[in-house]
C-alpha cells in the first residue's frame, strides 16, 4: 500500500506514547511521511487515550485519514471508538487480558478481529507493562518491516532504565513480531518510502526550534493548554542558547516582560491560548503604540471562556484582529503545516523587527499538537533581518540629546536605538507622542502619527500570502491554519470527480491580501470559507474586503473536532 493508518489505544499510562515514539522514529528514518495525532480524555489520569498515525510512502500528508488499517486496542473504548472507521481489509488486535471478548461489537465486513496476547506474552518476560512492545512487534510484522531497524531504537529508548530492561523490551518486541509471522494470517506491506530522512515533530515543537533558530533569546510565558509545551520546550532548550525564559505570574506579566526584553534589544516572544490572549489585549496595544517588536503565538483552542481547552477551534481571529482598544498596526501569520510553522517563526521575528509592531502566529490546537513530518531544518532558509537600526557611529555623529525615535520617514518606519547606545536615549510612551517620543496632544501630530503607524504595515508580505492550489473555477475552498490538510484532500477528491476545485489557504491574515483573493473569488463559481468556529470569522474578514461577496458561503464546524475531508465533500455536494 502507498499509505496506511495505525491506531493504538488504551488507558492513559499504558505505554502508548513509547510505541508511538519508536514507531515514528524508525519510519521517519526510513523516509516515510507521517501525521500523528494524540487524542486525550480530559481526565488527568486514567481515561482513554489513543495515538492515530497515518503513514505515507510518497505523498505528503497533513491530516489524519478517515479510515484505519490497523487498530491495536488495549481497552474496550478503542474498539467502540474506531470500529466504524475500519477500512475494508483491516485488522483489529485487542488484548486478550484487558478486553473481554464476549459482548464485543461485530466487526464490519472485511475487518479481521483478533484476540492478541499482548499482556500474556509480556508477562512471560516478567513484566506485563511491556505489552506495548509486544504490540509494536506485531505492527512491525504486519507491515513487513525488517525487525532489525527497530532493535536499535528500542534499545536507545529504554537505555536510561538500564541494559537489562532495554534488552527485555527488545525481546518483547520480538515475541510480538513472531506471533504475527507465525500466524501468517495477514499482512499490510507498505511501499518503501521515496523521501529521505525527515524530522517528525509537533507544531509546538516546530515553533520552538523556529524561534531559537531565529535568535529568540527571551520568552516569558504562563502555562496554558495547548501552549504550555512551547514554554516547557523553550525552558528546556534555552540554556544552550544563552537566553532567558521566565514562567511569569500571569499573562499580563508574561506579555509585558516580553515587551521589556524587546525594548532592551533582544528578540523576544510569548505564547498562549484563548484566555491568555484576552488578558494580553492591553499590552498588545502598547506594543503597537510604542512600536516595539513583539511575537505572540496563539495556539487557538475551543472557546469561549474556559470552553473546550483540549479541543480544536479557530475562534480567536477577531480577538487578534481587533481585541485591544483603539487601533494599532499588527501582523497575523497563520502556519498551516508543521513545516511552515518553523519558518513562519523566522518570518515573524523578522517582520516584528522590520515593522516594529506585534506579530501574531495564529496557530491552532491541531497544528500545535499534531505531529507531522517536516524537512530537516535548513539554516540557509533562516534569515536575520533586524530592521532599521542606527549604528553607534551614526549616533555619535548626530550627537543629539534626544534621539528622534519616532521620526517621520518615507516608509513610516523610524530607526530604533537600543539601551546601551550612546546618544540613542529616548522616551517611549503609550500616550500619543511626537518624534522624540514625548507626549503631545497636537492635532496635526496625532494625525501624522496615526497614519505613520497604520500605514507602515501596508507593504507587509510573506512572499506567499495565499497558498493557492488547483484551478478553482467550479469551487474555491478558503481556509486558514491546520484545516489545510483536510481541505487539500477534499480538493483532490473533487478534482478526481471532475469538479474544477481549488483552494486558497490564507497565510497572511493581516494585513489582508485582498486584491489577490478577489481575483480568485471572481474566477470561481462557488466559494466556501471553511473554519473551525461558529460565526465564520475569516469569512467575515473576507467580506469586508471583497466589494461583492454575495457568492461566499460559510462552512463552520464548532464541536471541537477538526475537519475531515469528508465533512467538506459532504457540504459541497449538498450545495451542488
Amino acid at each position, binding site marked *: 500500500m502507498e499509505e496506511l493508518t495505525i491506531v493504538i489505544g488504551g488507558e492513559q499510562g499504558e505505554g502508548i506514547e513509547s510505541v508511538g515514539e519508536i514507531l515514528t522514529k524508525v519510519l*521517519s528514518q526510513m523516509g516515510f511521511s507521517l501525521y500523528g495525532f494524540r487524542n486525550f480524555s480530559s481526565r488527568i489520569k486514567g481515561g482513554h487515550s489513543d495515538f492515530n498515525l497515518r503513514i505515507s510512502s510518497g505523498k505528503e500528508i497533513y491530516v489524519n485519514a478517515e479510515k484505519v488499517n490497523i487498530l491495536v486496542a488495549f481497552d474496550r473504548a478503542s474498539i467502540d471508538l474506531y470500529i466504524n472507521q475500519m477500512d475494508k481489509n483491516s485488522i483489529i488486535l485487542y488484548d486478550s487480558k484487558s478486553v473481554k471478548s464476549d459482548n464485543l461489537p461485530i466487526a464490519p465486513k472485511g475487518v479481521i478481529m483478533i484476540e492478541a496476547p499482548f499482556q500474556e506474552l509480556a508477562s512471560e518476560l516478567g513484566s506485563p507493562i511491556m505489552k506495548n512492545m509486544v504490540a509494536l512487534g506485531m505492527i512491525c510484522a504486519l507491515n513487513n518491516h525488517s525487525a532489525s531497524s527497530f532493535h536499535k531504537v528500542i534499545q536507545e529508548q529504554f537505555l536510561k532504565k538500564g541494559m537489562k530492561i532495554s534488552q527485555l523490551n527488545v525481546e518483547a518486541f520480538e515475541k510480538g513480531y513472531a506471533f504475527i509471522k507465525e500466524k501468517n494470517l495477514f499482512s499490510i506491506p507498505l511501499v518503501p518510502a521515496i523521501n529521505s530522512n525527515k*524530522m*517528525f*515533530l509537533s507544531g509546538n*515543537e516546530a515553533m520552538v*526550534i523556529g524561534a*531559537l*533558530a*531565529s*535568535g529568540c*533569546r*527571551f520568552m*516569558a510565558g504562563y502555562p496554558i493548554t495547548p501552549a504550555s509545551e512551547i514554554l516547557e520546550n523553550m525552558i528546556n*532548550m*534555552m*540554556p*544552550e*542558547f*544563552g*537566553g*532567558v*525564559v*521566565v514562567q*511569569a505570574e500571569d499573562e*499580563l*506579566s508574561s506579555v*509585558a*516582560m*516580553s*515587551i*521589556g*526584553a524587546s*525594548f*532592551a*534589544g*533582544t*528578540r523576544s516572544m510569548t505564547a498562549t491560548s484563548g484566555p491568555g490572549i484576552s488578558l494580553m489585549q*492591553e*499590552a498588545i496595544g*502598547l506594543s503597537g503604540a*510604542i512600536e516595539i517588536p513583539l511575537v505572540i503565538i496563539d495556539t487557538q483552542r475551543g472557546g469561549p471562556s474556559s470552553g473546550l481547552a483540549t479541543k480544536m477551534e479557530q475562534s480567536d481571529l477577531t480577538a487578534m484582529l481587533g481585541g485591544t482598544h483603539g487601533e494599532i498596526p499588527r501582523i497575523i501569520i497563520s502556519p498551516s503545516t508543521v513545516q511552515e510553522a518553523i519558518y513562519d517563526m523566522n518570518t515573524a521575528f523578522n517582520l516584528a523587527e522590520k515593522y516594529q509592531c506585534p506579530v501574531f502566529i495564529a496557530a491552532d490546537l491541531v497544528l500545535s499538537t499534531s505531529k507531522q513530518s517536516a524537512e*530537516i*531544518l535548513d*539554516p540557509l532558509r533562516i534569515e*536575520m533581518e533586524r530592521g532599521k537600526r542606527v549604528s553607534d557611529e551614526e549616533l555619535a555623529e548626530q550627537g543629539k*540629546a*534626544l534621539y528622534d525615535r519616532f521620526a517621520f520617514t518615507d516608509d513610516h518606519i523610524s530607526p530604533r536605538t537600543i*539601551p*546601551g*547606545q*550612546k546618544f*540613542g*536615549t*529616548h*522616551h*517611549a*510612551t*503609550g*500616550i500619543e507622542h511626537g518624534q522624540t*517620543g514625548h507626549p503631545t496632544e497636537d492635532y496635526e501630530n496625532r494625525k501624522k502619527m496615526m497614519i505613520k503607524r497604520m500605514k507602515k504595515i501596508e507593504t507587509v508580505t510573506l512572499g506567499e500570502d495565499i497558498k493557492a492550489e488547483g484551478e478553482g473555477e467550479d469551487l474555491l475552498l478558503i481556509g486558514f491554519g491546520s484545516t489545510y490538510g483536510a481541505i487539500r484532500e477534499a480538493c483532490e477528491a473533487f478534482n478526481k470527480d471532475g469538479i474544477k476545485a481549488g483552494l486558497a489557504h490564507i497565510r497572511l491574515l493581516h494585513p489582508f491580501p485582498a486584491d489577490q483573493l478577489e481575483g480568485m473569488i471572481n474566477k470561481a463559481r462557488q466559494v466556501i470559507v471553511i473554519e473551525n468556529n461558529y460565526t465564520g470569522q475569516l469569512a467575515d474578514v473576507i467580506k469586508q474586503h471583497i466589494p461583492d461577496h454575495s457568492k461566499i458561503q460559510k462552512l463552520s464546524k464548532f464541536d471541537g473536532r477538526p475537519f475531515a475531508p469528508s465533512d467538506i465533500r459532504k457540504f459541497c455536494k449538498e450545495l451542488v
Partner: protein
Amino acid sequence: MSTLKDYRMDIKPNWCPGCGDFSVLAAIQKSAVNLNIEPEDMALISGIGCSGRISGYVNVYSMHTMHGRALAVAQGVKLANPDLHVICAGGDGDGFGIGLNHFAHAGRRNVDITYIVMDNQIYGLTKGQMSPTSPQGMETKSSPGGNPEQPINPLQMALASGSSFIAQAFSGDLKQLVSLIEQGMKHKGFSFINVFSPCVTFNKILTYEFFKKNLVNLDEREGYEPSNRGMAFNIVEETSSMFTGVLYKNERKTLTESQPKGSGTDMLRQGQFELNENMKDKLISRFI
C-alpha cells in the same frame, strides 16, 4: 563621567507646583550621577499616573508603559540585558492597586531592579479618588462618606513577598531620598523604596506638614537592625508605617544569578543570534 545635565531635558513636567514627585525626579537624577552611571546604560520604566510621567523627564532609555504593569516590563528589560541599570517607578494606585501582583512576584524573584513608588495615598491623575493606601475614613472623590476599606501596607507586603531591600523615604527630605535610592540601586537584587510624595492638589490630609510632624527616621534609631524580618514587620506596626530609612536588607541570589547554567550569560550579552551548524544540531537532534 556623567553630570546632572546629562540626565536633564528641556521638557517641563506637567505636575502641579509643589507636587512631591519633583523631588523624586531630582533624586533619581542625582543618584545616577553619584553612582557614575552613564545615561545610556540606564532604563527607567514607569507606570501610569501623575507619578508615571517621571520617565519622560529623565534623559535615559525610558518607557511609560501601562497602568500597573511597569514592574513586569522592567523585569523583562533587566533579564534581557543584565548590564543595564533598571529603575521602575510609579504611583501607589499603580503599584499597590492594579499592579500589586507583579510587586509581590518581582520581590520573590529578586530581579535586580530598583522600584520607587511615589505614594501620595490618592489617585492623582484621575483627579482624586481613594487609593489602596488612603487611610480608612479618608474622604475623597470616590469616598465622600470616608474610605470604608483598610489600606494596604506596602512595606509589610514587600517583606512578606520576599523583597531583599526595603526602605521608605519622604519627598520633603531630598538628602535621605537620594541616599536611599543610591543604596537601593547598589543593592544586588530587588530593592523597593516607598516614597511619601504628597499630592498637593487632591490630598489635603497627608501633607508635607503631616509627614514632617509624624515621620521618625529609622536610620538614626539606635539598635535597629534592618536584617531581621520579624523585627522589620514589628517596627512597621509600632510606627504605624510613619518612618523613613532602611527597613530591611539582605542579599540573596538574583534571578539572573540563579538561572540554569548557560542562560542569561555572555551569549545573551553578545547578541549571538545567527544560526550555526552546532546550534542547528542541538535544535533538531530530538526530532530525527
